[in-house]
């Protein structure tokens, strides 16, 4: 999908998130977890594990996955899908980094393969 220019919302700086860490963006509808990997890639997922609703922003980030703090389900940061034998998916949001600033689109991404 293409995000219109006016859909991007500035949410903060890349350096506000530690490497292999996450921060939350709170909206009335939902909380979104913004992840920064060791390679400085940034991803955005709904902050809710598809299994027991665990806050993914509190999980441990490894590679491009995060382990849920409640159940250790491993969720892909790219697709929102549970890895391994587990089945489930959480919402993925478009996010971009320009000049060290992060912008988020609050409209959920429709992934082609999802």
């Amino acid at each position, binding site marked *: 999908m293409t995000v219109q220019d006016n859909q991007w919302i500035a949410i903060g700086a890349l350096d506000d998130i530690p490497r*292999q*860490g996450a*921060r939350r963006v709170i909206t009335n509808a939902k909380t979104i977890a913004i992840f920064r990997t060791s390679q400085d890639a940034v991803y955005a997922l709904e902050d809710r594990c598809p299994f027991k609703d665990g806050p993914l922003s509190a999980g441990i980030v490894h590679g491009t996955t995060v382990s849920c703090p409640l159940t250790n389900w491993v969720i892909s940061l790219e697709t929102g899908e549970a890895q391994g034998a587990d089945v489930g998916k959480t919402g993925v949001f478009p996010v971009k980094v320009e000049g060290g600033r992060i912008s988020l689109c609050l409209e959920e991404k429709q992934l082609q393969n999802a």
Partner: protein
Amino acid sequence: MLTSSRVKMPRHNDVADLHIFALFESAATALHVTFSKGQGCGAEFMKHLVSQRAKAKMGHGYMTQKLKLVVVGNGMAPGRMLEHLLDAGDAYDVTIFNAEPRVNYDRIMLSPVLSGEKSFDDIIIHDEAWYKDNGITLHMGAKVSKIDREAKTVTSENGITESYDKLVLATGSDPFIIPCPGHDLEGVLAYRDLDDTNAMRDAAGKGGSAVVIGGGLLGLEAAAGLNILGMDVTVLHLMPTLMERQLDTAAGYLLEKELESRGIDIRCKSNTKQIIGEDGKVCGVELDDGTLIKCDIVVMAVGIRPNVQLAKDAGLEVNRGIVTTNGMQTSDPDILSVGECVEVGGMVYGLVAPLYQMAKVAASHLMGPSDAGFVHTETPTKLKVTGCDLYSVGDFAEGDDREDIVLRDAKSGTYKRVIIQDNKIIGAVLYGAVDDGGWYNEMLKSGEDISDMRDTLIFGQAFQGGGAVDPLAMVANMSDDAEICGCNGITKGTIVSKINAMGLTTLAEVRAHTKASASCGTCTGLVENVMALTLGDDFKLPDVETMCGCTKHDHGTVRRMIKAKELKTIPAVIQELEWSTPEGCAKCRPALNYYLVSDWPGEYVDDQQSRFINERVHANIQKDGTYSVVPRMFGGITTPDELRAIADVADKFSIPTVKVTGGQRIDLLGVKKDDLIPVWKDLNDAGMVSGAAYAKGLRTVKTCVGSDWCRFGTQDSTGLGIKLERLLWGAWSPAKLKLAVSGCPRNCSESTCKDIGIVCVDSGYEILYGGAAGLHIQGTTKLGNVETEEEVLEYCGALTQYYRETGFYLERIYKWADRLGYDHVKSVIYDDAEQRKAYYERFLFSQTFAQVDPWAERVQGAEAHEFSPLADFSSREAAE
């Protein structure tokens, strides 16, 4: 001594797995075997047996008199010989006299015992049940001092005499001790048996430095082990390069560089002049050039000497060893000999493979007339210290009629040299890349003409066909005669036929029935490949208890390597120990973070992103994503002011639930993440710190009211509990750590199911540990009694530190103690004052970095990103 009858088989190990067989039975074990049936024997032997029985009948008037076999020595070679005899189907009546006070164990595996990776139980070959089941009586600690060949009896020093019809001498060898001044000082050790290994471990536990004299296999094994245990190690070697008997100078140089890079000081061309002592104890070594090296122990590993005294006294032919025919017969037809004490064909042997061959030959001759004869073969030498794999076989001296093919890759640190004579391989030395060792050895043995492949020979087997070699295809292409297990001389054909005949499906079964990979274990991969080929889909690789899917290492190996290689960051561990994932996972990263916190206090920077959320935000996450907060109350004591502050916090932040915990604390449940910092600030202001109720670390010390109030109280249990908690708080440990102090044996604070429990008694304090009352229930085991509170603190601090340094992540103290053995823990912490003090001091040092209140730090602004959202649009959206 033995707690179970299991016999564990060795697997791959990464450090100091020297392929050497140090068979040093001292002169003195007698084994007494009696034939009771004749099945399985040849016709000739039946005749022999009948004639013996006829003699017996003449003497005693009836036919049940049994033929007696006495064996002197209870090491690996006679042990193997007995197995062959038993396999032949005979039921024997056996009596063993063993100079060592223990059963037969795998001496190849002493180095993992030295490094702490294995326990003695792990390396037992024949446990007590084995002797019993096979009708063998074992006299341990009974050294045979006399053979009377006329009367056909042997007599031990402790007065036991046995008569024999056949005698087997397996007296092994003794370490050679250089007779320099000071060689008899306390602290001069050899490296030959379990006692030496334990002595080295004890010495290493006290820290300090060690000098190893001898840079051969055994010396380097000892040096690597002591280095891993944290000692400063210097190796003195007389020759210009290390392991000159097995390696050429180039490979010896590479090995030296590698060992030096780990902090082992290697000094070649060093000749020891004397060992210097102080008050009868070693304090240094002086070289003949005047150099002085300070040290606390000296390990002599300069060689072994066949132990021939008993044979010599009995008038048998003795040269360097006990001289035998290739049928293992000595100069007395009724006496055979096996093991390191033997000289056969002018050679004496120290590696396991030829010794096992001797065992087989001797057994065959004991079963009756046999053609079996010992044949000399080149035995490859492998040294498996992680990062310095080497392999050598055959003859590698230079000569006019010899050619060398050499490959060096300085960047990767590999070196390969193949020595050729008349277009045949006669030797090979490999360093760094040793995968082709077996292939070169096969060609060396078969005498294959290599002219057609000499251009690519040095690149290894993979290059002969063009493509990369598939290990399974390589095994498939091996002939049935190809040797898979060098230690035990087991061919591929033997393994395949046993698997098929007996329906074996697991590695453990294959080891039990064929012995393949059951000694040093380096051929385990090959054996697994043979199993995979034979069983097809029925073969499943055994589950190795690795830390997680990211690594092939188990927790013990990782902990050991972190110290040995001085790995001080998570990326360093992941890189050096070859993790299969780029940055680990949620299972291994918290474990690595703990190991590094524990091993490098003050140096390692705690990686917050590798901690679970509870330890990152210093509160316990609840099922709804809120948190619980528990302030510390030392010893379970609180005050009205503290209680008022807690009540105010609960009101101010609308905390829905306030609960008293099992550990005598107050738990505030349902705190929102964004409220954590202000909640802590209010609690801090009232003088309270984090109760660490979330930590893999010290949680609580629970107490009863003790002698202050209780009419039964014997000591001030509350006061002691407070002191213990003030000592221990802030410490991270492998898993949570909960203590209790009870004022009397009525045990109101439930000390007997805690990780560490103290029970006060009139005479002082009982220290207990290893209790559990969760999923698993078990009572504590007593560490010992002490008299003063100061001692309680020292013993508990030392015990905690020992657990911190050797526990596996998430392993509670009871599991840790079950694994190490309660007697062992007691011997280190209770019985050995020096080790206890060393652990206690390390604990105190570590605590200087750990006793910082994480709540206060965060109230001051640390890790602020954890607690506040990056952006909050909820109000703005609501306003729209």
